[in-house]
C-alpha cells in the first residue's frame, strides 16, 4: 500500500514537472544580417509566435503524447554558403526533427539540397520560385503561391482600369524575381498590354538613376518589378525623387513590410502582390482566425503582421496538423500527412502537388493585391484592392 502511494505521489510530482512531455526540434536559419534581414525577421516572428503559443498552452497532442517545440536557429547572413553549412549542422549536430526554410528562393534551393540528402522534411515560406520543386524532391513543401502567380493579380487589376497602359518591367536579377517576371511579361502581352521596357538589375544595386532615365524614355505608364526590401525601397524612393509620372507602381515583397511606411510620401499608392493580408476573411478550418492571429502578433511585436509573418506562422500550423494526423513526429508518416493536406486556415487554402515532376509545389493558395493608401487622417494604411470579391478599398489609379 505504501509503495502504491509513493508511486502515485511520484506520478503526480512528475506530471507537475512536465514529465512525459516530448520536444520536437525545428531547425532553420534567419537572415539576422545582410540584405534579406527585414523580410527574414518578419518571417521569423511568425515562427516564434506559433512556437510560443504552443508552448504556453503546454504543447500539442499527437498519438496520445504531448509535444513542445524547440528551435535550433542561426544567422545565415543572407548568404547561400552559410545556409549549406548551417542546415547540415542543424541536422547532424542539433538533431532537428523538421526544418523550415531560410528566407528567399536562392537560400531555400541551397538548403533543399541538404535536407533532401538527409531525407528531412522542410516546409518553405518566403521562397516562391518554383524550379526547386521540379527537381524530384520528396520532402519539400511550399507554403507560398508560386512565383508565376505574383504579378498576375496586378495585371488583372490593371486590365480592369486601363487596358491600354504601357508597361515596364524593372526587376532584381535574382531567381525569384526572374521566376515572377518572365511569366508575367508573357501574361501582360497575352492581356494586350504594350511592354515597352524590360531590364534586370544586380541585387546589390543602390543607384537606379540610369534605369529610371530609361523608364522615362520608354514612356511607360506602369512599372512592375522590384525584388526584395533593400532594392525595392530604394527604387521607390528614387522614382519619387526623379518625379517619374507613373500611373501604377507594383513592387514585389518590399511594400508588404510594415517598415514600408518609413518611406513617407514615396510609399503612397504603391501596390504589392501579397500572399495574405490582415483584412483577408478566409474561414479557418484549423488554427486561429485571421483577426486572432493579427491581434496576437500586434500584441507581441507592436506592429501589424506582414504576409511573410503569416507565412511563417502557417508553416508551423500546417506542420503541427500533419504531426497530429501522423500520431507523432515520424518523418515518413508526417510526409504522408502533408501530401494529403487540403485545408483552409486564416492564411487561405493549402494543398501540395504530389506528382513526381512538381512534388511539394503549392497548388491551393492564391494571391491578392494590396495598395498603400492614405486614410482620412492622412495615415498610411495597406488596403486589399484585388480581387474585387475580397477588396477592402478601391484601387487608386492613376497614382500620379
Amino acid at each position, binding site marked *: 500500500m505504501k509503495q502504491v502511494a509513493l508511486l502515485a505521489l511520484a506520478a503526480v510530482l512528475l506530471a507537475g514537472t512536465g514529465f512525459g512531455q516530448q520536444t520536437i526540434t525545428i531547425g532553420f536559419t534567419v537572415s539576422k544580417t545582410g540584405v534579406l534581414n527585414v523580410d527574414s525577421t518578419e518571417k521569423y516572428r511568425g515562427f516564434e509566435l506559433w512556437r510560443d503559443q504552443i508552448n504556453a498552452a503546454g504543447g500539442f497532442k499527437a498519438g496520445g503524447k504531448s509535444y513542445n517545440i524547440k528551435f535550433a536557429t542561426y544567422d545565415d*547572413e543572407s548568404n547561400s554558403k552559410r545556409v549549406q553549412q548551417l542546415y547540415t549542422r542543424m541536422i547532424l549536430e542539433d538533431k532537428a526533427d523538421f526544418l523550415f526554410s531560410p528566407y528567399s528562393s536562392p537560400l531555400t534551393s541551397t538548403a533543399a539540397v541538404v535536407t533532401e540528402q538527409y531525407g528531412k522534411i522542410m516546409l518553405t515560406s518566403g521562397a516562391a520560385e518554383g524550379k526547386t520543386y521540379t527537381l524530384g524532391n520528396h520532402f519539400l513543401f511550399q507554403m507560398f503561391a508560386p512565383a508565376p502567380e505574383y504579378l498576375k493579380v496586378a495585371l488583372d487589376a490593371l486590365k480592369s482600369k486601363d487596358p491600354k497602359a504601357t508597361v515596364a518591367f524593372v526587376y532584381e536579377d535574382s531567381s525569384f524575381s526572374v521566376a515572377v517576371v518572365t511569366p508575367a511579361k508573357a501574361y501582360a502581352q497575352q492581356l494586350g498590354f504594350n511592354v515597352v521596357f524590360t531590364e534586370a538589375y544586380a541585387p546589390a544595386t543602390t543607384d537606379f538613376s540610369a534605369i529610371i532615365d*530609361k523608364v522615362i524614355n520608354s514612356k511607360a505608364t506602369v512599372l512592375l518589378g522590384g525584388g526584395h526590401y533593400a532594392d525595392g525601397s*530604394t527604387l521607390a524612393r528614387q522614382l519619387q*525623387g526623379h518625379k517619374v509620372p507613373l500611373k501604377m507602381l507594383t513592387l514585389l515583397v518590399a511594400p508588404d513590410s510594415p517598415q514600408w511606411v*518609413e518611406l513617407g510620401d514615396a510609399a503612397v499608392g504603391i501596390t504589392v502582390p501579397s500572399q495574405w493580408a490582415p483584412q483577408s476573411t478566409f474561414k479557418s478550418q484549423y488554427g486561429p482566425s485571421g483577426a486572432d492571429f493579427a491581434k496576437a502578433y500586434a500584441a507581441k511585436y507592436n506592429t501589424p503582421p506582414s504576409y511573410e509573418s503569416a507565412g511563417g506562422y502557417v508553416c508551423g500550423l500546417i506542420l503541427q496538423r500533419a504531426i497530429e494526423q501522423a500520431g507523432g513526429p515520424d518523418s515518413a508518416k508526417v510526409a504522408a500527412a502533408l501530401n494529403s493536406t487540403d485545408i483552409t486556415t486564416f492564411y487561405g487554402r493549402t494543398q501540395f502537388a504530389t506528382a513526381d515532376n512538381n512534388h511539394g509545389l503549392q497548388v491551393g493558395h492564391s494571391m491578392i493585391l494590396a495598395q498603400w493608401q492614405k486614410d482620412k487622417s492622412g495615415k498610411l494604411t495597406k488596403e486589399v484592392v484585388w480581387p474585387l470579391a475580397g477588396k477592402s478599398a478601391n484601387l487608386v489609379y492613376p497614382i500620379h
Partner: protein
Amino acid sequence: MIDGLLVGAVYGLAAMGLSLIWGVMDVINLTHGSMIALGMFAMYLLFAALTINAYVLLLPIIVAGLLLGIVVYWMAVHWVVGRSMLMSLLSTFAVNMMVIGIGTAIWSTSPYNVNFTLPGITIGAYTFTGNHIAAAISSVVIALALQLFLYQTRTGKAIRAVADNREAAELMGISSTLVLTIAFGIGIALAMTSGALVSTLFPFTILSGATYQLKSFVVTILAGLGKPFGALIAGVLLGLLEGVVTPFIAVSWIPLIEFGLFVVVLVAFPQGIFGKRATA
C-alpha cells in the same frame, strides 16, 4: 548623363583621398573602403541626432576623419612607410577588417538610409534630385579647397615636396613624419566625407565602402598616382561614361566596362591620363 556627372564628382572626391596617400607615401590604403563606410555611418548618426541640413554635417565629419586618419597612421602605417609595399597592404588590410568587424557587430550588414531630401530641379521629363546636386557641389568645393591647400599653404607645399622627394624635403628642414601624418589624415577625411555624401544619395551598409573603393582604384589609375585634382576630373569622367553608355546597355554591364577601361589605361597610359609622360 547629368546624373552620371553629378555622381562622378562624388566618385572623384572618394578617389582623391586614395590618390593623395598613394602619391605622398607610396602606400595603397586598403582602409579606404571601410573609412568611406564609416563616413556613411557618421552622417547617419549625426543626422539622426541633430536633424539639421545634412550637408552642414560635413564639417564635423571632415574633422573627425582627420583625427581618425592620424590615429590610424600611427597605429598601422607609420611603421611600414618606406618598407615593402606588401607590408603596408597587409597592415591597412588588417585595419580594414577590424573596422568592418566592429561595424558589423554594431550595425549588422543591414541597409541604412539618411532620410534627408532637398528639392530637385526639373527639366522636361527629367528631374535631378537636390541631394545629387548638393553632393556634387560639395565634392567640387572640397576638391578646390584641397587644391588651394596643396598649392597655396606652407603645409600643402611641404606635402608636395615630400611626395616629390622625401629625402630632399627632409634636407630642407621639412619634418616628413609630420607631413605624412597630416597627409594620411587628409586622405581619410576625404574618404569619410565622400562616404557621408554617398549616404545622402543611396542606402548603405557597413560593407558598402568596398564598391566605392574599387571605383576609387579605377579613378586613381585613370588620373595617375598622386594627382588629387586629376582624380576629381577622372571621377567626373567615369560618372559621365556611366551616364553615356547606360542608355545602350544593361546597367549590370557597367562594372565590366569600368574594369575594362582600368586595364586599357594601365597598359596604354601607365602614368594615368593626367600623369607625367615617361621620357626616353
